[in-house]
């Protein structure tokens, strides 16, 4: 019994808490300087956070038990007492939310082409499956050609019924049944056509970096990259993201041998071999969304709110009466 009491006393003391806080600080500093990608996911760091959480649960519980008697004793400081309790409990909630996130959170990336539908339950486990259909993807631009917003126009489909339509853009995620969708990135597929001797036309949608193999020739065409605003001075980098001067950079091969590189305009007929042509008719954008389900999020949000309110009222609204309390505390807290 003695030992348990001692361990509990140690674990729940503020001094231990402060030591742990220093350890977290030092660890975070070293981690951010040397191995940010590895360190913060390591079990060592997680363990430290868990011990800190345990300490704060105990010390907050202690304070909760003492709350009433302290309120009576420090009647003129009741706002500070409430604030202080709120802020410490808030930190505990945030850490708990983080813990739930670590064990039950799910993340996935979803790429959808305009007109396509993706079953979200294939990447995020859920009770009532639904799908996301991309109606359109549009980039808005500033005057100088830099992007001002990326918009995915989506429709939520559940049991084959349209449930919702929404625009997902940066800073405006969609929340549907606890799954949140964020605009994360985008890309383009190139519409390529080849026309051969016999006058046959074949259309294909090609990913950047992939090859077209037209019939009627041994040669192949690599669709290297789509450049929205081509400027020879910028080389392979686009001048701006706005499609002011779109080109497709391609290269022609015979076997392993590179025959040439070119920058084709849309609808330009490029002769690959005798009587074999390739035409790039345009591009089709696809959107990349981040899908996330985090059951710990409400807990963390609640904790954040409690913490903010607690900090504010504990430190600002309450009068600071330093001399009075000095004696009364040293007894309660080790």
């Amino acid at each position, binding site marked *: 019994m003695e030992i348990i009491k001692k361990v509990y006393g140690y674990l729940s003391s*503020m001094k231990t808490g*402060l030591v742990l*806080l*220093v350890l*977290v*600080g030092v660890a*975070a*500093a070293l*981690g*951010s*300087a040397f191995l*940010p990608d590895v360190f*913060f996911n390591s079990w060592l760091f997680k363990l430290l956070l868990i011990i800190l959480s345990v300490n704060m649960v105990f010390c907050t519980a202690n304070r909760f038990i003492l709350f009433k008697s302290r309120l009576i004793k420090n009647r003129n400081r009741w706002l500070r007492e409430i604030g202080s309790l709120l802020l410490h409990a808030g930190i505990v909630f945030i850490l708990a939310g*983080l813990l739930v996130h670590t064990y039950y959170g799910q*993340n996935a990336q979803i790429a959808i082409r305009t007109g396509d539908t993706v079953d979200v339950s294939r990447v995020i486990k859920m009770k009532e499956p639904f799908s996301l259909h991309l109606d359109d993807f549009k980039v808005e631009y*500033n*005057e*100088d050609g*830099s*992007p*001002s*917003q*990326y918009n995915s126009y989506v429709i939520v489909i559940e049991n084959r019924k349209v449930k919702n339509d929404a625009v997902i*853009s*940066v*800073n*405006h*995620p969609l929340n549907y049944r606890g799954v*949140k969708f*964020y605009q*994360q990135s985008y890309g383009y597929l190139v519409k390529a056509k080849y026309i051969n001797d016999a006058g046959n036309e074949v259309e294909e949608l090609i990913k950047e970096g992939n090859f077209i193999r037209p019939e009627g020739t041994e040669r192949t065409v690599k669709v290297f990259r789509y450049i929205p605003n081509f400027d020879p001075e910028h080389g392979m980098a686009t001048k701006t993201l706005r499609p002011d001067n779109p080109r497709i950079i391609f290269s022609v091969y015979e076997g392993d041998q590179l025959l040439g590189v070119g920058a084709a305009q849309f609808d330009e007929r490029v002769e690959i071999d005798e009587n074999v042509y390739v035409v790039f008719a345009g591009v089709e954008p696809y959107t990349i969304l*981040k899908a*996330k389900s985090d059951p710990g*999020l409400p807990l*963390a*949000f609640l904790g*954040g709110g409690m*913490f*903010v309110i607690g*900090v*504010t009222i504990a*430190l*600002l609204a309450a009068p*600071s009466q*330093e001399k009075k309390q*000095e004696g009364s*505390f*040293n007894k309660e*807290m080790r």
Partner: protein
Amino acid sequence: MKLLITVIIYALFITYLLGAVLFFIGNKSGKKQALLTAGLMVKIGFVLNIAALIVRAVIAGRLPLANSSEFTLWFTVIIVALYLFYETKAKMREAGGAVMLISALLIGSILVLMKGQLGEAVPLMPALKSPWLTIHVLTAAVAYACFALAAGLAIMQLAKAETKITDGSIHRIVVGGFVMLSLTIVFGAVWAEQAWGNYWSWDPKETWALITWIVYALYLHLRRRLGWKGKTASIMVIVGFVFVLFTFFGVNYLMSGLHSYA
């Protein structure tokens, strides 16, 4: 416009620096004239600083809240506003030298490290288009400014044998800064959740804001629980400000991350 903002920034730098020098001379020799002129410099600097923000807003065509030089202008204007308030309340000019020197050095950093930023009109990138930008940046600027003022007071308190600067007043300013830093971090997390889909990603800026916050939390607890006051407390306040500066400059220039544009 480009020329105007450059002129204002140079004038601002000289004004703050001159103010600092005059404060040091005045406080050392007790010459009233020097102190009065120093006080005038603070006010001129304050007006110039506001002018710089307005001209920058016109050049950028938006509220100047996005890059590090814009942030620095808020940082110093709030330091000076807080200092003016403190000077009137405490009725003394002892800390003026250190506070003005800090402001001058910050403006100097715009001239050295952030050249050309203020003359260019760069539209906001999509991630920055959020009401949280205003709240997050302004609370951060107020937090940093409180810590700067507190450090200025602490430096002068340590440097002088006899001083009217009280431990309690430094503590109160740190408390203000701590609340604002707490708000900055929480609002930043809410925003990150909206923009990036993660409220905490151990990005260097986040991590160092947390470390800074831990340093001041330690100060608050040690001061209250273990009675670390006077000299030890003042040293902690100065160390805390070194962490603030690292979170601002060190992270921007030495580490890369999601926050790297500010």
